[in-house]
């Protein structure tokens, strides 16, 4: 896939994506772009296909229809070398960390470095300790994943995901299984990563507190419509929800925050608002 001038600014571009499990359609006709340097949240209820969408974005599942471009390249069409190049530029934090259980934390972080770089072991050690220190796990390098807590595991997985300084980071439900304080710390870490490295971040989440805290823009997957029914900044979506479902989703726990006067019944359902171009 050649370099496309139009999408040069968008690290991820999804066009007319339909996701399917066998005959069961999960979501239809998704089109959106993720802009460089933004924190983009994929939200929706349980079972709406958020994680499935992420699996499509990172190339683990093939679209039934439509295309997904990463920096203008299609992962599934790319040859081995290009695919490796694409994968090197993305980092993924799985729901439960997915640290390799047979390796220590240090080895987990070091493995991508060993695979992709020709650095000498000493330098790799240094980078590994630095990455672990950045997520607050200094000195835990020799621990195995089973010896640390869930929150620490997620942070260690973040260290591994950022080992190669990826341009785009994917998070699958970063706050799941964590207490509110630990979850909020992970959010801070995400914000900090973006601020210091300019990393584009794609987050799958249904945690409202986290969505309002970190998201620049969010898209909403409507399980009944099997489509995305909203795309925009969460605060704006709450002020002016394009559908009843979006409003219900965003209002659930935000009674204490500035309320919205929007009447859901009075609004027409606006489907698939056109993805905005990058400035």
């Amino acid at each position, binding site marked *: 896939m050649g370099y496309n001038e139009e999408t040069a600014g968008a690290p991820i571009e999804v066009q007319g994506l339909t996701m399917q499990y066998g005959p069961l359609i999960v979501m239809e006709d998704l089109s959106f772009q993720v802009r460089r340097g933004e924190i983009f949240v994929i939200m929706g209820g349980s079972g709406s296909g958020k994680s499935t969408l992420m699996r499509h974005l990172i190339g683990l599942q093939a679209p039934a229809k439509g295309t997904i471009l990463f920096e203008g390249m299609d992962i599934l069409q790319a040859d081995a070398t290009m695919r490796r190049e694409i994968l*090197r530029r993305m980092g993924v934090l799985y729901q439960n960390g997915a640290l390799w259980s047979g390796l220590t934390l240090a080895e987990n972080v070091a493995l991508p470095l060993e695979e992709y770089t020709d650095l000498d072991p000493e330098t790799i050690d240094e980078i590994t300790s630095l990455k672990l220190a950045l997520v607050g796990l200094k000195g835990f390098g020799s621990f195995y994943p089973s010896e640390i807590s869930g929150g620490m595991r997620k942070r260690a997985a973040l260290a591994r995901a950022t080992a190669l300084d990826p341009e785009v980071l994917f998070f699958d439900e970063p706050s799941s299984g964590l207490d509110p304080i630990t979850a909020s710390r992970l959010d801070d870490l995400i914000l900090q990563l973006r601020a210091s490295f300019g990393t584009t971040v794609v987050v799958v989440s249904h945690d409202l507190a986290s969505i309002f805290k970190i998201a620049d823009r969010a898209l909403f997957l409507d399980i009944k419509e099997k489509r995305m029914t909203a795309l925009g900044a969460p605060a704006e979506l709450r002020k002016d929800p394009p559908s009843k479902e979006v409003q219900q989703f965003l209002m659930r726990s935000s009674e204490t925050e500035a309320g919205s006067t929007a009447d859901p019944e009075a609004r027409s359902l606006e489907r698939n608002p056109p993805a905005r171009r990058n400035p």
Partner: protein
Amino acid sequence: MNAAIHREGRTLIVQLAGDWKLAGAIPRFGPLLEAEGDAGGAQAVDFDTATLGHWDSSLLAFLVQISDHCEVHDLEFREENLPDDVIRLLELARIVPERDVDDKPTQPSLVARLGQKGLAGYDAFMAAVTFGGEVAGGVGGLLRGRVRMRWREFWVVVQSNSSGALPIVTLISFLVGMIISFLGAVVLRRFGAGYFVSYLVGYGMLREMAALMTGIIMAGRTGAAFAAELGSMKITEEIDAFRTLGISPVDHLVLPRVLGLLVTMPLLTIYAAFIGILGGLVVAINVLDLTTTQFTGGLLAAVTLSDGLLGVFKGTVFGLIIGLAGCMKGMQTGSDAGAVGRAATSAVVLGITLIIGANAVIDWLAVLLDI
């Protein structure tokens, strides 16, 4: 738990009385209605709860029956006379609409199912070929120095499949050697040929039983373990984590396991053959009254190196089969709780089936090649 129906004009009055507890059977609305005679012409269902006592979900289930009946028969469901709590709960039950039924595929016809089975079989075969290819590619990469295998994992596999497997292999091989020897004792003594028991034990252990028994033990022990290990890694997304980092899970997880087993299986086979012969010797001395010299003399006169090598070759092939079957089933694990168990089971079944099939093929070739 009482429900009675009577009619007032065009309205059916359902009288709910007494305590409704889940312990008893819930009345069925349909039969009740039939018992009351023809309900035709009714336009609404109303309720009389004057004598209703304590109630739980059983009442709700009954009311849902009525409500569904009303919907089907276009009757008005008048809930105003029901207790407020009941009305709220009914609303709650209705608030989420039932999922579209067409989401659930209906039972397809026999032909369709046959076709699906065929396609699934084809997919499984192609997946096995692809997996074999990936492993072969990995080995090629390893030989050319392009793939960095985790040697630590390799040595762990070697250890657990050598010293770790010795006790069980010793026990089984010794017993199998004894069994062959007993068999020989029964048959050969009849012809006064008890001396030749050493031939039987020697050939039997070296050519067949050492490799076969070791293979079956290792399929149950190690093949299942590989499938379970990789299966749980699949479930915890560790394998996905390899893929999205552009690192081949085959190189990192499968190669060390398959190669480790490939190294240890021939060694275990040789060991099993010796132990089996030892078992045979014990029986020969005690039952057939042979001496150790007679036994070993007969054995060495009959058995050649090629018999031993055939067994070792078989052991190596079996090692490959067990390793590949176990790892493949592990990598193909689904994502539900029972999936790892199923992966382990099918790894053992597949492993043992292929081992016995391969044994037959190798024996046939050996006969053809006069080995």
